[in-house]
């Protein structure tokens, strides 16, 4: 028997004949009409995602910003009202507990963590709690619906009471969607423009149905975790457990832009500063396979006869001319863009080139 939890939208997924899989402790839709069809919807029009499995924690109190700045590698206290910011919580060795987004709301902070790390992060935050910091978990109760794609703004605009174009990328607002009070953020994980809608679980099914019904004619499609993984990989976005783990640090993952060494102290600072200084670490690179064979997680990577690393994520990439793309953790010597490497697939070596990430960038409007 399965013991997965259900999001507020579980019955909606069944009604849409989604294929459900266990993910992060929840039963989640991996696909509805098909991963490639859903991928195309997001790149060309818009897709609707249930992300209610992700952990939503509310942080309140006068000391939240200073406290969080001592735990996470990016800056929290400098965030403006309604700003959203990517951040990473590390262990003392510099490995990542989780990558997260902070949202600064007028009277509180919203912290969104990975579903697979939600229990670990809840325990970590509570264990580290001090001063005037109050924590509330909405995990599993609150819902999160994302609408992503070039038409996301124009579609969603018809359902909300504010001017969406006034919300800048990585900012949020409080608004009403079809009358329901929500937090709306211009964030996402697909490489397209779009919004994430944080709302009470009990209001989510009606909003989900209303958005699909209102915009199906313009090509809005329900999209599952399968399409989301292809979209995020094309966009060069890391996925916890793949490009970053308790062992693979943000520096190795190429996320040094989020590392604020000017902050006085935070967990992992010394280890990460040393790693950056020494510059000998294995690192995540983008690979583009030469042929039709796909590189998958765990496949070994070679430079000549020397094993230099392994694949961490891999997929066919419809937005990159149907090439097979991958991320790999490789030795420093093999990480230069343009380097020719080989990926071992079922006992045979296949050519792959180190390429710049992201693999896909959305066209400028």
């Amino acid at each position, binding site marked *: 028997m399965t013991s997965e939890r259900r999001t507020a939208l579980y019955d909606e997924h069944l009604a849409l004949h989604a*294929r459900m899989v266990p993910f992060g402790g929840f039963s989640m839709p*991996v*696909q509805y009409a*098909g*991963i*490639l*069809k859903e991928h195309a919807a997001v790149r060309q029009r818009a897709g609707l995602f249930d992300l209610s499995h992700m952990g939503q924690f509310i942080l309140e109190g006068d000391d939240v910003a200073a406290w969080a700045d001592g735990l996470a590698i990016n800056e929290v206290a400098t965030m403006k009202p309604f700003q959203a910011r990517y951040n990473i919580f590390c262990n003392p060795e510099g490995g990542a507990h989780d990558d997260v987004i902070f949202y600064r709301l007028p009277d509180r902070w919203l912290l969104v963590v990975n579903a697979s790390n939600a229990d670990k992060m809840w325990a970590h935050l509570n264990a580290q709690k001090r001063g005037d910091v109050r924590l509330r978990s909405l995990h599993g109760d609150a819902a999160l619906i994302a609408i992503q794609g070039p038409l996301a703004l124009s579609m969603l605009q018809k359902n909300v009471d504010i001017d969406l174009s006034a919300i800048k990328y990585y900012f949020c607002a409080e608004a009403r969607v079809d009358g329901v009070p929500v937090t709306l953020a211009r964030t996402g994980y697909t490489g397209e423009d779009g919004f994430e809608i944080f709302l009470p679980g009990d209001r989510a099914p009606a909003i989900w149905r209303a958005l699909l019904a209102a915009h199906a004619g313009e090509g809005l499609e329900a999209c599952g975790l*399968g399409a989301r*993984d*292809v979209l995020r990989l094309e966009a060069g976005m890391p996925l916890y457990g793949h490009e970053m783990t308790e062992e693979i640090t943000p520096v190795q993952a190429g996320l040094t832009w989020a590392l604020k060494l000017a902050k006085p102290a935070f967990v992992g600072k010394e280890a990460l500063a040393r790693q950056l200084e020494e510059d000998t670490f294995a690192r995540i690179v983008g690979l583009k396979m030469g042929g*039709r*064979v*796909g590189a*998958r997680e765990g496949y070994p990577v070679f430079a000549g006869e020397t094993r230099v690393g392994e694949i961490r994520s891999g*997929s*066919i990439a419809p937005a990159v001319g*149907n090439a097979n793309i991958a991320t790999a953790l490789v030795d420093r010597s093999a990480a230069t863009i343009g380097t020719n490497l080989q990926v071992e697939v*079922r006992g045979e070596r296949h050519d792959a080139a180190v390429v710049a990430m992201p693999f896909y960038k959305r066209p400028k409007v």
Partner: protein
Amino acid sequence: MNIPSDLLYSKEHEWAKIEGDIATIGITDFAQGSLGDITFVELPKVGAKVEQFANVGVIESVKTVSDLYTPLGGEIVEVNSAIDADPAALNNDPYGAGWLIKIKLAEPAQAKALLDAAAYTGIAHD
């Protein structure tokens, strides 16, 4: 789910259509649905001799890699070369344009180890 009554099936979700001493082989509608969008297929070489239930190829979909087993043994006499350019044919028409290999049967009695449509219907679910 489509399970044609005139075919034989393996527990690994392949189908076989036997005409004389030649069997045409592919994967079932259930198999293609489980794999999702198929992106690449590796097939054996014409002339290869294969044992019943041997691993003869690989099917890659967007989210997974799966081995292809042959439900019958013999010599590969033809492979569907059109699949390379159009792997989606496996999703769209698994019993027609999505056929994979033709085998000259080594031992026609091997078909007794396969399932008929009614028996296969019993195992073609998650």
